[in-house]
């Protein structure tokens, strides 16, 4: 069992900013654990622009934004980075157990910053009836398949949800040669930015059905079509408005959930509705010395806000460690 001053779990934009900030505020013994084989988290697959307007006053893509922090952190020898490291257990006294190829390790830091991001809501969580064929993807998975692996999930796509992720993927699919048949949004207007409606949807003449919901997914082995209908204010189907859209792919982009199962394991109080930690002060949790930042604290719209939030967490953690001496 190793003892450290600070452990940061997560090497995406939140973890990177928090670790760097903690260092800038005086912490000289930091271990950052990242489960993937590279730093940057989801920014690596967000190849589009829209990042850094606030923090850097520049128009950057996700990878470029991440690169700024990756270069910075790699130049700090006091921050040890362990890739392919997956935390499996967290205890109330902050003892962490993590696995990596070839070993199981335990470490107990004085302070812990959790920057574990969020996961996507699935089709099952929004109860879309029908079959379970191949061809149903969360938007994030589709994005990873296309942008990291060069795999095209499908050729005729229906996107459920008009949030930014869904809109960005509408453009991505179109540019890669697929046909986006429709975006289906249950609310009366888009949940994403207007600029994305312009550059992702209008630019490519993609039909958007507001106040509509998907009634059923059809297809035995692969998606064959979806049934869609208009809904009233109570989100119930308006009889007589149902129609089918033939497609081979359904993208589900219906919301994000903070990933906080690890701190829940440690007995940290979690809000059952949002899955965020119950917190009276930003970044602090119900267990002193355990901090949460980035999307696992609260789902942010802009990565610039994630950075700001995480820098604060780093500062608070540094303060906490200083006060315990």
């Amino acid at each position: 069992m190793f003892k450290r001053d600070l452990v940061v779990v997560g090497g995406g934009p939140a973890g990177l900013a928090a670790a760097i900030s903690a260092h800038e505020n005086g912490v000289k013994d930091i271990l950052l654990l990242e489960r993937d084989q590279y730093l940057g988290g989801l920014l690596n697959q967000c190849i589009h622009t829209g990042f850094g307007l606030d923090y850097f006053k520049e128009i950057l893509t996700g990878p470029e934004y991440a690169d700024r922090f990756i270069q910075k952190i790699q130049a700090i020898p006091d921050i040890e980075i362990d890739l392919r490291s997956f935390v499996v257990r967290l205890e109330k006294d902050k003892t962490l157990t993590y696995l990596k190829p070839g070993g199981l390790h335990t470490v107990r830091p004085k302070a812990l910053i959790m920057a574990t991001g969020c996961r996507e809501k699935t089709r099952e969580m929004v109860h879309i009836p029908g079959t379970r064929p191949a061809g149903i993807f969360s938007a994030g998975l589709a994005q990873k398949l296309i942008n990291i692996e060069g795999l095209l999930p499908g050729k005729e796509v229906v996107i459920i949800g008009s949030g930014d992720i869904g809109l960005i993927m509408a453009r991505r699919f179109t540019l890669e040669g697929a046909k986006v048949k429709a975006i289906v949004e249950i609310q009366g207007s888009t949940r994403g930015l207007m600029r994305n409606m312009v550059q992702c949807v209008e630019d490519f003449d993609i039909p958007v059905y507001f106040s509509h919901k998907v009634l059923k997914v059809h297809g035995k082995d692969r998606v064959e079509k979806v049934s869609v209908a208009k809904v009233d204010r109570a989100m119930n189907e308006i009889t007589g408005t149902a129609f089918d859209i033939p497609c081979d792919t359904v993208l589900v982009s219906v919301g994000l959930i903070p990933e906080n199962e690890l701190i829940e394991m440690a007995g940290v109080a979690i809000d059952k509705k949002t899955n965020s930690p119950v917190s009276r002060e930003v970044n602090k949790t119900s267990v002193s010395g355990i901090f949460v930042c980035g999307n696992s604290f609260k789902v942010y719209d802009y990565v610039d806000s994630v950075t700001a939030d995480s820098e604060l967490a780093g500062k608070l953690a540094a303060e906490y460690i200083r006060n315990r001496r």
Partner: protein
Amino acid sequence: MIKKMVCIECPKGCLLSADIENCKVVKVAGAKCPKGIIYAAAEAENPSRILTATVLADGLDIKLVPVRTDKPIPKKDLFRAMEEIGKMRIAKPLRAGDTIVDNFLGLGVKLMATREANR
């Protein structure tokens, strides 16, 4: 004539109103910053977009290198650009920000890598 549009320069998405005479924008209303005025003119006369995509790597530590144009290119050239990008292969290691192609498609923009790729 008046053309209404949403500015895409930043997340604010100001609703612009462009006065167009003889195919040229003479006045722009609704912009909260100078970028909006420039955008309106470009959008009315020659709509352009920054293109982001990925290029297949060969013998590097990532399968695809994400790329971008440093400046917007005309909307009408987007698919032609994607076709060109589809044919490229990157075999040399590079840093984020490195230029892959100068004067991409003869449009006066650079095609740049946005992520580091090593051997």
